[in-house]
């Protein structure tokens, strides 16, 4: 197949988002990268310029101290690992809950389907912050859940749910579930039901047919859903700040503290760059997987 010729209109259409990405993603990223190699200073801005002239000769001062510092203080490593753990568990829970839901929506009649999809998207119409605050009201010691359980006599002392991992999982799973369901639904909806009939015809029980036909074919949907949940969950700031533990911070919170509390912009930038690397690797793996998938269907 020959490549279609790129017209002036085509250049414009591609140029607008490219300019957008360059100005609002590449440029800030380069600035952050630059700051991460700088030294902290009590000044405005609070870091030393990379380009400095010392008595006549100009030199570039690259400080790797910010990065090595992240590996000397266990706070950062622990926060990274904790963030990965929280994101992984939340992603797994989202998959566990979201897959059957996506499957049911994909198999529902077309009228029921549009209603169900509407219900999945509906929470987005309320502010995200508001919905997380609502969970505080539900989970706190004298909150709705504890009061109901005490009233029913199921428990005699209020359960500590707020400021635990449990609350963070609830918050993340609740907030990110649609991002798992929608790509899974888009994948499952395209499945050919006759393949399941063919499997049944060849002697496969419904469970075997699911395991050998539906599941392998939905892998791209699973991968897309998992990445859409995992990546923002790693850097999640609001949910763990409002619902999470105070003794163990997630990396998003560490970053913000470095920035606003410590005013150590270089270290904060190094944290951000390292987090980006941590996330870019799985994204690239996913894209390679996806490209292979697309290539196989050509």
């Amino acid at each position: 197949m020959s490549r279609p010729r790129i017209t002036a209109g085509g250049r414009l259409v591609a140029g607008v988002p490219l300019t957008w990405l360059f100005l609002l993603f590449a440029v800030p990223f380069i600035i952050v990268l630059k700051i991460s190699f700088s030294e902290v200073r009590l000044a405005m801005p609070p870091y030393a310029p990379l380009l400095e002239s010392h008595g006549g000769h100009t030199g570039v001062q690259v400080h790797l101290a910010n990065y090595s510092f992240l590996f000397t203080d266990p706070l950062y490593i622990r926060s990274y690992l904790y963030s990965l753990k929280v994101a992984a568990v939340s992603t797994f829970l989202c998959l566990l809950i979201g897959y059957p839901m996506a499957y049911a929506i994909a198999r529902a009649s077309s009228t029921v389907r549009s209603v169900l999809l509407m219900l999945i998207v509906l929470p987005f119409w309320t502010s995200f912050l508001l919905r997380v605050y609502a969970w505080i009201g539900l989970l706190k010691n004298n909150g709705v859940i504890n009061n109901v359980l005490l009233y029913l006599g199921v428990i005699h002392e209020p359960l500590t749910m707020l400021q635990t991992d449990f609350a963070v999982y609830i918050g993340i799973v609740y907030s990110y579930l649609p991002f798992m369901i929608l790509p899974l639904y888009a994948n499952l909806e395209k499945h050919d039901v006759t393949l399941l009939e063919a499997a049944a015809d060849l002697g496969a029980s419904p469970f075997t047919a699911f395991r050998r036909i539906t599941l392998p074919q939905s892998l791209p949907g699973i991968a897309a859903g998992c990445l859409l949940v995992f990546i923002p969950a790693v850097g999640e700031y609001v949910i763990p700040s409002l619902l999470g533990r105070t003794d163990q911070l997630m990396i998003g919170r560490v970053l913000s503290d470095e920035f606003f509390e410590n005013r150590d912009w270089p270290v904060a930038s190094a944290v951000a760059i390292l987090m980006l690397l941590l996330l870019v690797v799985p994204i690239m793996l996913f894209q390679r997987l996806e490209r292979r998938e697309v290539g196989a269907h050509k």
Partner: protein
Amino acid sequence: MSLDAYVRIEGVSKKFGDFVAVDDVSLQVSRGEIFCLLGGSGSGKTTLLRMLAGFETPTAGKIYLDGQDLSTVAPYERPVNMMFQSYALFPHMTVAKNVAFGLEQEHLGRAEIGRRVGEMLEIVKLSQFAARKPHQLSGGQRQRVALARSLVKRPKLLLLDEPLAALDRKLREHTQFELLNIQKALGVTFIVVTHDQEEAMTLSSRMGVMNHGRIVQVGSPTQIYEFPATRFVADFIGSVNLFEGRIAGADAQVTRAGGSRTRIHSNELGCALEVEQPQSLAAGATVWAAIRPEKIAIAREAPTPPDAGGSQEANVVRGSVKDVAYLGDMSVYLVQIESGKLVRVTRPNVMRGTQDRIAASETVYLSWHASSPVVLTE
């Protein structure tokens, strides 16, 4: 009831809400037979097939296979396999994996599975494609994978849903005969659903024509074509000229040299009609005479009666040619007879060249033998 009925369908009906898809169908198929269910879309043929496979449950009636009642057997436990119209190959598995899938469900040993998959791919001539994925195959190859996958389990009964519909014409003819050879070699009983009469005629030893959920006629392809039971069957299989008429009164039975004949008056035809078919119908009964286009002779001169002593006027009608379609192997003439009705006549183009071929707007005589018309009452 024949004793060797291998598949027995007894009074099977299927309703979807108010819609009766299959209406009280009873049918018997012998072991090793290729039976075709022929019908238009919505005739219920596919629903009947899906009930045999177990994807639909009959609203009423029973289905027996080799003496076993299949009513309560789940699709994945039936000794029946189906070849789907869309083939339904598993896109993420190789050809060999697709074929092996059914055997893996029987928990056979790996060596046994490998051997039988190899054998089956040999039969459908796909051995060198074993490692390919379905999307890397041509339509004909995919069809053979589907066939191999459904046959490898050695089913008692193989159901084929429009097995050749997705293939182009040339490939279809070739595949038809291949399918027949494979069936003969393996001795599996086939039930084929098709809307294509040509497919049904070449494949089947017997066929059933379905309309509105009912089986209208069961018989060999020759029986169905030459002795259709109803106007629907006559019209559905091949093309036919139908003339409405009434059995003549007192002079209904006439004796000619060739034997006794029944006379029919038809205003639509405009000439006396004598048929050999013995009739026990009352005088005045409304009937339809069905005459196949290839059984009508077309000539510029009025023919002399083919059998001495035949009536000069019977089975001959004059008309003018409205249209001629040259199809290569044969030509189709549309002749308007004096009553105004259009009659379709086909002639094989035995001789090459164009000289002296009957052309449009010529006056012609159409004639046929008294054995040609089929008298139908419904």
